[in-house]
């Protein structure tokens, strides 16, 4: 049994491409070409050169000594926060912009919630000199002003999504509608392992550089490529997919996925999709999503805009359903405390998304000789105002 995608575009029963016919030619063009193009030597060469010289890869695998002492176990942090633009998101946007160029596309669209994927997309569009339009919920534009300014400075046009609840899911709807209206010249850079096949697989493959590096780096540090545990936070789940990718079918390695419980799972203000979600279809993918009994998609809540998504990628839905991954929900308060703790123990201010993953150590006891790799998916610069407000700094 494999936990990776099958040849029909499904992870177990999750995935597929539930899209209107208007999107079929775009998706079909991608499906027929993504494996072929990304396997080409010239693609691989340019992709890895940019990851090395532009993004700054490989990102370090850092042994967090003081954090390890505190929790009496061995914790390694995969430093995706040190990437150019401050998070793992850029691994995917580099890959997709190179693919878009080879498909002859001259215009890029993207959705963004907190603005991290929007910034990563605007960055690669500037790098390649391609027009860039980023859809962002009107509410998110107001609460993520620095990232809106970054995108504009990079030359992107930021379009407010005014429909529905005016947040990430609506920005995604607007990007898809744009693609329906511009089917020939435009490529849609989806920012996570969500959406219709082949997006979940394509994004996971671009993010898989993370687990590829972990294997090599862990051999150097520990003499084994297998950690006992992998830990990552999951919104849509792209940093988690990258962390798990080369270990999916290696059941010697335990997988922990961390979701945002918001103010508490059963408070009505939560984003813990594995607990609160039911099987359904969101943004063209069959997966777990938060919805009413009547099948209307509901608005999640988390203090972290990057985890504030009502669904989860189909790979993760399958990891949950099969029991391959352990899912843990972390509240706003637990995450903020863990973020402050990492700052003061290791001198690293993490993104609030990542702080959720870090809070696992208060939840679960590991053995002293366990080797744990946690994806430090993003840096906390973008969240400074949130931390300041929360801790009254």
């Amino acid at each position, binding site marked *: 049994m494999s936990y990776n995608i099958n040849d029909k575009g499904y992870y177990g029963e999750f995935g597929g491409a539930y899209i209107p016919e208007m999107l079929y030619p775009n998706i079909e063009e991608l499906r027929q070409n993504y494996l072929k193009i990304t396997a080409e030597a010239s693609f691989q060469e340019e992709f890895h050169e940019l990851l090395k010289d532009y993004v700054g890869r490989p990102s370090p695998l850092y042994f967090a000594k003081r954090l390890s002492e505190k929790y009496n176990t061995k914790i390694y942090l995969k430093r995706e926060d040190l990437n150019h633009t401050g998070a793992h998101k850029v691994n995917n946007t580099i890959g997709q912009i190179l693919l878009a160029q080879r498909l002859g596309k001259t215009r890029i669209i993207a959705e963004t919630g907190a603005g991290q994927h929007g910034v990563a997309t605007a960055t690669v569009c500037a790098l390649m000199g391609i027009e860039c339009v980023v859809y962002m919920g009107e509410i998110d534009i107001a609460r993520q002003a620095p990232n809106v300014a970054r995108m504009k400075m990079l030359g992107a046009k930021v379009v407010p999504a005014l429909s529905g609840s005016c947040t990430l899911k609506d920005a995604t709807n607007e990007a898809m*509608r744009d693609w329906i209206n511009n089917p020939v010249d435009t490529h849609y850079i989806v920012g996570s392992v969500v959406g219709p096949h082949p997006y979940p697989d394509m994004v996971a493959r671009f993010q898989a550089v993370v687990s590829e590096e972990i294997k090599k780096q862990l051999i150097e540090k520990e003499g084994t490529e297998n950690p006992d545990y992998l830990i990552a936070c999951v919104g849509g789940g792209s940093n988690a997919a990258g962390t798990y990718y080369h270990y999916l079918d290696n059941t010697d390695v335990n997988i922990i996925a961390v979701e945002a419980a918001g103010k508490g799972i059963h408070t009505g203000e939560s984003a813990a999709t594995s607990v609160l979600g039911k099987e359904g279809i969101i943004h063209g993918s069959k997966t777990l999503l938060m919805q009413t009994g009547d099948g209307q998609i509901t608005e999640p809540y988390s203090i972290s805009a990057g985890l504030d998504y009502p669904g989860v990628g189909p790979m993760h839905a399958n990891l949950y359903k099969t029991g391959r991954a352990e899912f843990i929900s972390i509240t706003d308060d637990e995450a903020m405390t863990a973020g402050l703790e990492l700052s003061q123990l290791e001198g690293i201010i993490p993104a609030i998304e990542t702080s959720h993953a870090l809070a696992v150590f208060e939840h679960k006891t590991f053995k002293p000789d366990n080797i744990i790799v946690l994806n430090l998916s993003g840096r906390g610069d973008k969240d400074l105002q949130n931390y300041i407000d929360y801790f009254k700094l």
Partner: protein
Amino acid sequence: MTLKQVQGDETSKMNRINQKLKEDKKLLSIYFTAGYPSINDTVSIIQNLEKSGVDMIEIGLPFSDPLADGPTIQDSSTKALRNGMTSELLFKQLKDIRETVSIPLIIMGYFNPMLQYGVEAFCKKCQDVGIDGLIIPDLPVDVYHEEYKLTFDKYGLINVFLITPQTSDERIRFIDSVSDGFIYMVSSASTTGAKTGFGNEQSEYFERIANMNLKNPQIVGFGISNNETFTAATKQAKGAIIGSAFIKHVTNQGVDVIDTFVKTII
């Protein structure tokens, strides 16, 4: 198989949509969102549309995230949901609709609400209240064919598929082969209500499809708002569907003067 047997089979399968498609006229179909502008307008809108001479009705089941729709239908859907519309309520409202209405009725909606209701339960309810067909933009034809066709057939429901100017001839042939009602021809690469009027691209597209001699008649949707666009759309096609323009009409004029809208079209 003799000719008589073939005709017999077709008659047994034929529902109101097939019968309507046999009429020697161009058909006008109107889309509206159930639960909009007010929660209890559903039945009176349907009755008024039939009285005004409309040939077929698409009852929109509102969805929180209507990917293929432009702002007009999005807004009406959001308001209908706020008004309290659900699948269950819609079926309740339609319970006695066949006592007063005889034209074909189609439910148009996204797949997730049907999936939550249970696809078989949904189909059964459709049959119970007298729905003739479904249009589900985000249920792909291959998934339908493999997983749901038998269920739809069991309850006598026609499933209608979309094609667009970007759909390849090969795929159009496939869609034609699995359809047994009509093909919904989306007039341009767009969401609903995004464009008005037709250009050269549409003329070429309409011509191309007409020349394919498909077994299913085609009904054109998207971009039709008045007599001019209705006439252009139905030059070759069997009929045309109006959605956003009708929603705008009821938003501005209310639900009691539907015939004034229909008179501007046909």
